């Protein structure tokens, strides 16, 4: 039976029915938890829940599953792969003491790496609920998660970008134009990744070939990805397509993932298939996952959990398959889950922290939709905070405007702003390439070349005379 938790504040007695309810009520406010009916009913109840949660031993999360072991393969993954040896140094702690430990000088980058496999998503989610934004930033900065394929992502002092050249009809010249714009602004070291307008195998293969040709011709130390369903990419691999990274949106419950049309065995098959192609040069991380708070509730698959706990469970799925990149698309889902800039900012910092603590190479799509109460200023704030926190990568898109997915994310300019004010650099292999191609006049001071680099000036001579777009 689920345990109930009681406490009294002044004359008022509070009761929380089970761990899931306690976790939900301890969560900083957001519209998705209100929608799910799991949010604290008052500001006081929220802090009381946090106080009760702070007293719980971390071992509670090993003994009380939020979603039953028998019902959910992600619960089974979390429990079966829990590393008791790695857990030993923090085994005796309560959630509140875990926060103290994470902030303490004992928790060095090495110590944090060592306990990683002993931390479950629920422990990470629980402690994050007790933490202020500055705590989430400080601890995340100490956690280092480095991955590699054709370059190395996540090294200290680096901020990479996904070049996202989406086009509403997948027009190859339109996509190429956005790729060129991005490269000439120093974007694309995390991945050149296209969301196809139409989700089918043939279209995906075409876009894979397009990016492969560009990467080969200019010898760019980066990787490509078409963000199509994992089963489509598997088919593309069978057809001999040049697949660098396999994409999939993932959630933190088995039912969420079934609603997305896959399960853990599908991801295992995909990882193996992509690794067999052996296309990486400096590493073998071949998966690209996207997540975001609210996806489980949206799929009716949240089992009464708060959305941030569901999100943290998705990172257990991610880390199982050794991804190159994990991207929380924080403001994409809309105001019914994260209402405004404040909620989006908090969620972005929580996701980045939980991901990094669990050993996931976390990046963030710092973004919002036009029906959310958010604007460019909110994005500037979150981008800056994540840059300080050591976020592995952000998006890069022309002028912040995704003309295919209809939302706003960080631009090529935004990424350069962050690199400049925070003294961050691109992935080392890519940085050398930027220098070699003369895209920057001085890459160390982020000073772009005012003139068009020779290799690209030559390419522009091949532009068609008449625009095909819209013809």
């Amino acid at each position, binding site marked *: 039976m689920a345990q109930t938790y009681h406490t009294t504040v002044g004359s008022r007695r509070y009761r929380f029915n089970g761990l899931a309810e306690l976790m939900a009520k301890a969560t900083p406010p957001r519209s998705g938890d*209100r*929608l799910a009916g799991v949010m604290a009913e008052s500001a006081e109840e929220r802090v009381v829940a946090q106080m009760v949660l702070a007293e719980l031993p971390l071992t509670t999360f090993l003994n009380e599953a939020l979603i039953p072991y028998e019902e959910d393969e992600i619960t089974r993954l979390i429990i079966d792969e829990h590393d008791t040896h790695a857990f030993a140094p923090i085994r005796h702690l309560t959630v509140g003491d875990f926060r103290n430990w994470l902030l303490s000088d004992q928790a060095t980058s090495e110590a944090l790496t060592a306990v990683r496999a002993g931390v479950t998503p629920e422990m990470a989610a629980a402690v994050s609920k007790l933490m202020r934004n500055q705590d989430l930033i400080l601890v995340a900065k100490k956690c280092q998660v480095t991955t590699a394929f054709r370059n190395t992502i996540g090294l200290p002092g680096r901020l990479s970008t996904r070049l996202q*050249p989406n*086009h*509403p*009809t997948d027009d*190859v*010249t*339109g996509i*190429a*134009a*956005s790729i*060129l*714009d991005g490269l*000439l602004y120093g974007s694309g070291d995390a991945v050149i990744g296209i969301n196809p*307008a*139409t*989700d*089918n*195998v*043939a279209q995906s*293969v075409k876009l894979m*070939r*397009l990016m492969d*040709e*560009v990467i080969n011709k200019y010898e760019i130390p980066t990787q490509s990805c078409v963000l199509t369903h994992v089963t489509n990419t598997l*088919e593309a691999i069978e*057809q001999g397509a040049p697949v660098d990274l396999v994409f999939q949106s993932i959630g933190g419950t088995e039912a969420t993932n079934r609603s997305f*049309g896959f399960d853990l065995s599908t991801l295992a098959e995909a990882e193996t298939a992509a690794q067999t192609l052996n296309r990486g040069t400096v590493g073998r991380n071949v998966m690209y996952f996207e997540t975001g708070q609210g996806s489980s509730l949206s*799929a009716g698959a949240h089992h009464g959990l708060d959305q941030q706990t569901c999100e943290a469970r998705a990172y257990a799925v991610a880390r199982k398959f050794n991804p190159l990149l994990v991207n929380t698309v924080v403001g994409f889902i*809309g*105001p*019914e889950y994260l209402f405004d800039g404040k909620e989006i900012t908090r969620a972005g910092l929580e996701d980045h922290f939980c991901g990094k603590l669990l050993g996931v190479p976390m990046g963030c799509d710092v973004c919002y939709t*036009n*029906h959310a109460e958010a604007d*460019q200023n909110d994005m500037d704030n979150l981008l800056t905070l994540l840059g300080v926190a050591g976020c592995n990568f952000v998006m890069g898109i*022309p*002028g*912040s*405007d995704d*003309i295919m997915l*209809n*939302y*706003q994310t960080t*631009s090529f*300019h935004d990424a350069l702003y962050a690199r*400049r004010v925070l003294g961050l650099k691109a992935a080392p292999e890519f940085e050398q390439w930027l220098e070699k191609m003369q895209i920057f006049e001085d890459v160390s001071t*982020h000073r*772009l070349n*005012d*003139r*068009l680099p020779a290799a*690209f*000036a030559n*390419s*522009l001579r*091949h*532009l068609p005379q008449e*625009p095909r*777009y819209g013809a």
Partner: protein
Amino acid sequence: MAHNESPPIVVENPWERLNAFTDARIGLGRAGVSLPTTKHLDFQLAHAQAQDAVHCALDGNSLEAALTNTLGLTMPLIRLHSHAQDRATYLQRPDYGRRLSDESREHLLNAAVTGQRFDLAVVIVDGLSALAVQQNSAPFLAALTECLTRDANDWQLAPFTMVEQGRVAIGDEVGSLLNADAVLVMIGERPGLSSPDSLGLYMTWAPEVGLKDDRRNCISNVRPAGLKAEEAARRLVLLLKEARQLKVSGVKLKDRSEEDVLEGNSAKGSTRNFLVAD
């Protein structure tokens, strides 16, 4: 006389002419590494307009008039409303937007012909852009009905329905109440800065309340500057025919409408572009 020859404050991008090939905001130039003032204010204006568009209401009368003119509708559009009473509720309660109001359910049951089965129910939903629905429904439905008429199979269409404050899944309830084998939801997608008028198409075989997204096939960005109505209709009919034959939809039914690009050297399958021209 010697003039001040200091370099320009705003650096233009020499590749700005690539703008002719995409609506993406490329070649914006820069002040340092930041957006020049004019480009920054262009963006602010577009965002302001998109925010305003989200709150614009669907005009049922003019939609019905457009459909009557284009398609010669023989029966009136059945007008329905979701459980979300207004836009503010709609934005925060997606669950309300997925179900019909009690009155609308009653209304639809009365309007539906008892016992009759249909091959396809078309449900027009405002979603997040009434503008998209208002502008693209008639041209798309004209293209769709033409494709269906040309098809060797006979397609019995249910009376057209229109839902205010609706989400994609509301089509499942409408389709099942109408006894339709398949449902097509035409819905206004979330407005983008450059595309406040984008229509999304969602097709589900054997609709019933409670289906998940893996049972739907989606074709997005249907608008004059995106996927043209005729091409969208062609792709949708291919999906519909396959769904009807295999009696499935969603992930189990891959969109193979562009499979032909893999065969031969058709221009459509070419990746040829200026970046890799030589």
